[in-house]
């Protein structure tokens, strides 16, 4: 298991000191980047993305529209409580208003990633900018950035977004992602600031300073490369958080209304009492898909952490 504690919230990453790991760097395959957790996580995520891409080619996504299929069909090989038998026309069954579940998840799953990626990119960008400014410039700038990120980290994002999205009823996937990204920057900011503060005092940065390197070059040529694994981990953590928030909004019925989403499918299923009606495929498939997405992201994050932490050890000496 990981020798490192990992959490979606990256604010705590530096808390543990992992035991030293022996590394012989002679074999080119012996790089920390070939990490079983990282690879298996990436494989899970890739599988879901592939479902989204191949699905669009081999399956008719128009079946995700209301009324395009027979109602309440179970998946192939199952018989529903109303004695409907699943057919190959709709291998994963259909729901209450005649949408094909296979088409729903093909269209819905990539939307979750889109939200995660957009929010994480925005949060990361802001985080890099603020974190570097705070860590490097120090003084007033640092005080303000620190204060703001302390404040932003306290606000429960979902609560704020519930209010906003219940007023703006029609949201697109991208709008929702941008709204979520309002709360995605404190994590990376705090992490980068903390790392920059430690690295600023480290030998090689002092050395670069002495040799007259510009601040800009120290930031991007000396410090940035050492931050890359952290940035990746933070990116994944942020994407996970954003997807989590998005799923929360969607299951409350506040997600995008025009495009199918996994959370939205769960919302409709719960609203139609799918659990009581024994229509497990309706709520179960999006649930399983979401679980795979989250576990995949977690594994990737764990992998990055294992890659990142030997560096943490080196950097702090």
């Amino acid at each position, binding site marked *: *298991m990981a020798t*490192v*504690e*990992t*959490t*979606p*919230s990256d*604010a*705590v990453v530096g*808390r*543990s*000191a*992992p*035991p030293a790991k022996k590394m012989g760097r002679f074999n080119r395959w012996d790089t920390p980047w070939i990490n079983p957790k990282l690879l298996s996580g990436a494989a899970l995520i890739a599988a879901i993305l592939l479902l989204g891409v191949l699905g669009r080619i081999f399956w008719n996504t128009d079946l995700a529209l209301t009324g395009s299929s027979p109602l309440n069909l179970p998946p192939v090989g199952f018989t529903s409580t109303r004695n409907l038998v699943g057919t190959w026309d709709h291998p994963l069954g259909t729901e209450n208003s005649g949408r094909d579940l296979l088409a729903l998840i093909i269209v819905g799953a990539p939307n979750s990633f889109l939200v995660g990626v957009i929010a994480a990119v925005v949060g990361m960008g802001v985080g890099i900018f603020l974190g570097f400014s705070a860590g490097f410039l120090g003084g007033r700038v640092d005080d303000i950035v*620190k*204060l703001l990120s*302390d*404040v*932003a*980290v*306290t*606000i*429960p*994002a*979902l*609560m*704020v977004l*519930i*209010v*906003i999205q*219940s*007023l*703006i*009823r029609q949201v697109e996937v991208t709008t929702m992602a941008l*709204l979520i990204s*309002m709360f995605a920057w404190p994590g990376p900011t705090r992490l980068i600031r903390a790392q920059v503060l430690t690295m600023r005092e480290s030998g090689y940065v002092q050395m670069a300073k002495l040799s007259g390197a510009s601040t800009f070059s120290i930031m991007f040529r000396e410090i940035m490369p050492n931050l890359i694994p952290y940035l990746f981990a933070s990116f994944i953590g942020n994407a*996970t*958080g954003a997807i*989590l928030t998005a*799923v*929360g909004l969607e*299951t*409350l*019925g*506040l997600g995008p209304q025009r495009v199918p989403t996994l959370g939205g499918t*769960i919302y409709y299923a*719960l609203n139609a009492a799918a*659990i*009581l009606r024994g229509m*497990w495929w309706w*709520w*179960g498939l999006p*649930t399983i898909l*979401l*679980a795979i997405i*989250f*576990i995949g*992201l*977690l594994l990737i994050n*764990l992998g990055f952490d294992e890659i990142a932490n030997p560096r943490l050890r080196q950097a702090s000496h």
Partner: protein
Amino acid sequence: MGGMTRGYLLRRVLIFFLTIWIAASIIWLIPRLAPGDPITAMVSRMLSRSGYIRDSAAIIEGWKARFGLNDPLPVQYIRYLSNIIHLDFGYSLAYFPTTVNEIIALALPWTVGLLLIAVFITFILGNFLGAVMVWRGTPRLFRMLIPVGMIFTSLPSILAAIFLIYVFAFLLNWFPMMGPYDIGMQPGFNLAFIGNVIYHGTLPALSIVIVSFGYWSLGMRGMMITVEGEDYMQLARAKGLSPFYVLYRYMVRNAILPQVTAFALTLGGLVSGQVLVEYMFSYQGMGSIIYNAILTQDFPVIQGTSFILILMTALAVLIIDLLYPLIDPRISYERG
């Protein structure tokens, strides 16, 4: 050093008020950046439902004036802030003469109760597992629990809730599917009622516990490994103290402190998860209220409940931050 310096205290209180102010302002500002206003939106929704409303333009204008939506934005903003400060959220639209505060007052105790119990169990269980993980006397099989807990940590509480409802309420019928107590039961301070509340609260609390204990275990494990390497540990063992005594008095006590700070950081997510779980279980808390308000487009209720939850979170973080220097006197708080 130690103790609480004045700067630290001021800073924490400042953070508290800034949190409230910024959250309240975002809630107010963002919807106003979008085109349209709530009254027009509401009347057009009514129009789309009932077909035709005579003089709808006049109605819209009348209500806009009534709610002061024609005033300049800064005036509206100040009025909004002053209402928020007085915790005055107006009337519920769906249950008209009832005020938002009355609705919240009914739900809040349930939410706080469930949250406290779930958090308490999670914190104890998670830290216990994390501590035991590092302790030398632990059986190997037990150590396997952590990776499992880890996997659950990545999942949202709603997924856990759906799963638990399906397995334990629908398939096995061991636990009730919804509500905080049996329908028709008279709330009272007797054993039967309390037992029923616990029975109903088990699954909701469990949904929160299984998705969060891994987080605490991991943090605790990391800290325990650090503490394990300290000199005083060697001394304690050399003194021949019993392993349990060392575990509790030397390791856990030192390792658990950073967990308290981590706790403050996760509160926001915890509250959000709780709201969703309550909605899943139709628990009589803030989550169900928010969900019903979304269904009935009862905006004042949505705003009021969300704001109260934001306020509670910020307040809890403030309390933790203020208690922390008292718990851990080693750290100085000259600068945040």
